[in-house]
Every structure is written in C-alpha cells, then in structure tokens.
C-alpha cells in the first residue's frame, strides 16, 4: 500500500507541471527524441532532459538511447494506474450519492403523500 502511495505521489507530482503534461500529450501522438521535444517546447536540451527524467522516474515515460539519440515513449501502464485510482475515488462518491439519491427519493414521496405542505 505504501509502495503504491509513493509511486502515485511521484505520478501526480510529475503531472503537476504544464510542460510535462504537454510532453505526455505529444508522446501520446508519437514517440519523440529529447531534442525534438526541447525544440517543440522551446527549451534547452538540459531543461527538457530534466522534465523527461522526472516523467521517467514516475514511470509515465520510458526512454531508450540508440547511438546519440534518446527516444521517449509513453509508459502506458502508469497512466492506466492513475486513471484507475481516480475512477476508484469516483466510485466511492457515486456509491455515496446513490445512497443519498434513495433518501431524497423517499423524502419526495413522503412530501407528496403529506400533500405539499411546505
């Protein structure tokens, strides 16, 4: 559990930056080298390298170096995991509000039975 939590913290921290979210979007369309990404986001190679390594540590991106080119691609599994967590949270709220819905429904029927006194 702690392990998941720590990894999830890294995931959310990595996603908290607008450039890094942009990089993920870009990689969602196609793989790209670090220098492609640096160019596209108007950054130095070093600056982009830092963003990429944060994404890589969070497991959101994987990189492979062939010769002098480092190619980045999405680490899909991690994104699925994060989506699963948010969905899990939604289910909790959904269950809670389904229960509220039943009670509201009951109150509504009760009010109707009592003949609209407000």
């Amino acid at each position, binding site marked *: *559990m702690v392990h*998941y*939590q720590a990894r*999830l*913290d890294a995931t*959310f*921290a990595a996603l*908290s930056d607008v450039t890094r979210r942009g990089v993920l979007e870009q990689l969602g369309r196609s793989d790209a080298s670090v220098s492609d990404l640096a160019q596209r986001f108007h950054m130095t190679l070093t600056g982009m390298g830092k963003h990429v390594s944060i994404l890589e540590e969070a497991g959101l991106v994987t990189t492979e170096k062939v010769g002098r080119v480092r190619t980045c691609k999405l680490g899909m*599994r991690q994104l*699925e*995991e994060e989506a*699963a*967590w*948010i969905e*899990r*949270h*939604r*289910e*909790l*709220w*959904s*269950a*809670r*509000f*389904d*229960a*509220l*819905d*039943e*009670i*509201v*429904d009951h*109150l*509504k029927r009760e*009010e109707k039975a009592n003949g609209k006194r*407000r």
Partner: protein
Amino acid sequence: MASEGSSAASKRTAVERKGDRELVVTRTFDAPVHLVFEAWRNPELFKRWWIPKSAGMSLVSGDMDIRTGGTYRLVFKHPAFDQPMAFFGTYKEVTENTRLVWTNEESDQGALTTVTFEEKDGKTLVTLHELYPTEAARDEAIAGSAEGLPEQFAQLDELLAARA
C-alpha cells in the same frame, strides 16, 4: 446500477481534479432543493447515506451540530482497522438550501469542504468542492480513498498486476 435507463446519464457522479489543490464532485438529484438540503442538514438522514454500505464501515458515534459555528464528530469502525477512525471539524457556514461549508480537522492536511445546492426545473445540482492545503494532500486523499475499501483495493491490485 440503481439508476435505470434514461435517467442513468443525469444521475452520473462526476469527479474532477481542479487546479493544484481542489477536487470537485458533482451530481444532479431529481428533487427540489429543500428536500436535498434536508438530507444533508438533518443528522439522522445524513448518517444514513454518507458512508455507503460498500465501504464496509459502520458508525460508532456521530455528533453533528449543523449550524454556522457548530461542530461535528463522526467516529467509524472498519473490520480492517484495529482502532476506530474519528473525523471532526467545524461548520463555517450553513445557509438554508444554498450552502454548507465545513472544515476537516482530523489532520493538518484536511480539506475545506464547500457544498452548494442549485435548483433548476425541479432538479437540484449538488457541487461538493474540497480545497486542500497542498497538492500532495489532495492527491493523497484521492489515492487514500481506496484504502478504506480493502476488497476493491485487492481487486484493483489484481487488475494492475494482470496488466503489468
């Protein structure tokens, strides 16, 4: 699951992260606002729905003084935890049929919760907004919600392991 056919879409609960420190949950109820509000401001009714059955938790005690400046303290127990868990705080604002604001003071990472009620064409839109002190606190709350649900957690675990 409880919702049937045409009403299913409108009864959907939406959860989204907003900005760095906020979480917003919305849902529309097919009833006028005074009835929906009643289910929040009447402690006996509130206790009946706040903890869904699927969470496996039960209420040990619940004191709720729902008025501006009043306090609450809810204590739950869960078979997976040795100690009961207490949630407490203060109602910052209670405005009939409009707004509820309360603090969550069980930790310094607790959110400020604001619930607004808006009636339109006989239906009521409920927006629950949580503002956390830090981004980490918010994200931990999202991740942590599954911890009270060990069964589902195990299922998620299996699912993720299968996909690895």
